[in-house]
């Protein structure tokens, strides 16, 4: 079991209020991702749940039990750190066994659990090595192994993939998602990468300046962003925003159109522009178009398009997929 409830949690470091007031309800077995720009308080929020920071006010509940003042060890949560935080002087085996040793389990039970974790994570042949003799991805797996042997109520991941190269990151992303399917344990995952958030989460918490901007499933966030911040943060490349008279035509303070929701033509359309940089990815082409009077726009089009720098194009936004926002940035 591992449901986590936050009630009006507030955290201040001296004068600086990092998290003004957050209430969240995370269900047992859910994979929840905290995503937001750096400095938005997502790591702090995770550390509050872990017990590594004290709340200034508010209540944190685990399975309905108030753990606001409980020590980290007493909460039964496991955490995977950004730097992995492996113990350098211990072998992989001792690293994974450490939490069990601290829990004073008998040696044969420890050996059995470590073996099981090592097999699950493909670490069996590295058990006697020191962490420094391992690659980044292997270290990451040891850190996860150390977390799973304890059979915690929930896993907390603090940007665990940010030190890995791009290919490995995609791999580990799959492995962690796969692990969640196997274990069905609650996982909270902090990242600044919206692609990780979209691909892994059951539900995403979008944070900005310590506030929850939206809490919902990935597709909810993509299709029905609650405000301009979420609209701009979720989706890659970013949504294009237009203010002023063009937005007023749609009775909004500003409108947003995703790069993939444009019709592109060389002869006619709503907005005229000149192609700047064309990023060709093979499967897609991202065109950066300088429009007349509406600023720079990013357009996603298929990979066979061969626009060149300086070509004149016409853009027509898909009328059913224009997002409208009021003056405060809320979606209309």
């Amino acid at each position: 079991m591992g449901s986590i409830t936050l009630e009006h949690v507030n955290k201040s470091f001296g004068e600086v209020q990092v998290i003004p007031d957050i209430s969240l309800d995370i269900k047992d077995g859910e994979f929840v991702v905290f995503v937001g720009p750096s400095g938005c308080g997502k790591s702090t929020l995770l550390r509050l749940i872990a017990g590594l920071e004290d709340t200034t006010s508010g209540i944190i509940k685990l399975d309905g039990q108030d753990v606001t003042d409980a020590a980290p060890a007493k909460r039964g949560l496991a955490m995977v750190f950004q730097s992995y935080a492996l113990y350098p002087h211990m072998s992989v085996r001792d690293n994974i066994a450490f939490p069990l040793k601290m829990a004073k389990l008998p040696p044969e039970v420890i050996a059995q659990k470590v073996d099981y974790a090592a097999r699950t994570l493909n670490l069996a042949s590295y058990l006697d090595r020191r962490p420094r003799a391992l690659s980044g991805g292997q270290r990451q797996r040891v850190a996860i192994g150390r977390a799973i042997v304890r059979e915690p109520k929930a896993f907390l991941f603090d940007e665990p993939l940010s030190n890995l190269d791009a290919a490995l990151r995609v791999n580990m992303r799959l492995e962690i998602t796969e692990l969640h399917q196997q274990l069905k344990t609650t996982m909270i995952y902090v990242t600044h990468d919206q692609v990780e958030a979209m691909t892994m989460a059951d539900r995403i918490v979008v944070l900005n300046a310590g506030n929850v901007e939206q809490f919902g499933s990935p597709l909810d966030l993509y299709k029905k962003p609650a405000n301009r911040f979420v609209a701009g943060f979720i989706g890659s490349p970013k949504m294009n925003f237009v203010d002023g008279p063009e937005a007023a035509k749609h009775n909004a303070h500003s409108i947003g159109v995703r790069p993939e929701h444009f019709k592109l033509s060389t002869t006619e359309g709503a907005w005229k522009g000149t192609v700047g940089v064309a990023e060709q990815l093979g499967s897609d082409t991202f065109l950066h178009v300088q429009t007349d009077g509406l600023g720079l726009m990013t357009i996603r089009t298929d990979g066979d398009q061969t626009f060149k720098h300086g070509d004149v194009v016409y853009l027509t936004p898909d009328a059913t997929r224009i997002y409208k926002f009021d003056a405060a940035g809320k979606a209309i």
Partner: protein
Amino acid sequence: MATKQTRALARTMMAPAVIVLFIWMIVPLVMTLWFSFQNYSLINPMMTGFAGWANYVYVIGDPSFTQALVNTLILVGGVLIITIVGGTFLALLLDQPIWGQGILRILVISPFFVMPPVAALIWKNGFMHPGYGMLGHLWKFFGLQPVDWFNQYPLFSVIVIVAWQWLPFATLILLTALQSLSEEQREAAEMDGANAANRFRYIILPHMARAITIVVLIQTIFLLGIFAEIRVTTGGGPGYASTNIAFLVFRTGILSNDIGAGSAGGVVAVIIANIVAIFLMRAVGKNLDA
């Protein structure tokens, strides 16, 4: 790596310094070796010439030599234990966030800046003197007979003074080691259910192993030659109770005016220092392998 040219150039440029250092080392060593085989006593200037092993037999055969050797080992060992245990404790305290941390750290380091004879004099007259020392007054305050430290516990008193001087060094090195421990490792251990004692034993202490090794090696080198503190306080006595090898060489060579025997003692001291160094590197040197 360096090319042939740069290596040749580097050797040429380094040569003057190396040659000067080599002469600096070899001349006194050869002179000491030479004197140690000579009949060379200032009291008896008529007796000269080759002495064979007589000086060595005289120095090593004397019961004071064994006592001085034991005293040297006790002195080094005692100071090492006090400074490393105390230094670890102080470093753990100083690592805590407290108000006035900067000033406190400077205060802790300050004994290291006091010259050894000065420190010994302060301890001798300010603290340990049975008549007007602070400790004497303290004992009297509790209605006890003041302790005459340098007569009753001469070696122990010297150990206390030297340990006081070297505690800041150990604290400083161990503190920097402590500060280089990543915060995430501590937090990970905390999440893993390790309490403060277990965190110290399994995480902090192994992390500090290399720093402790360095403290042991450096301090041993300096502590084998402790001299000023003994000279100022006990003068090696009573009897030979607080005489170490270095002080024995001084007693033989300068106080007894026997340059030949003193030189022999000096050569023996060099050999002993090397033996200790070899054992030490065997015992703790493996911690230095990255």
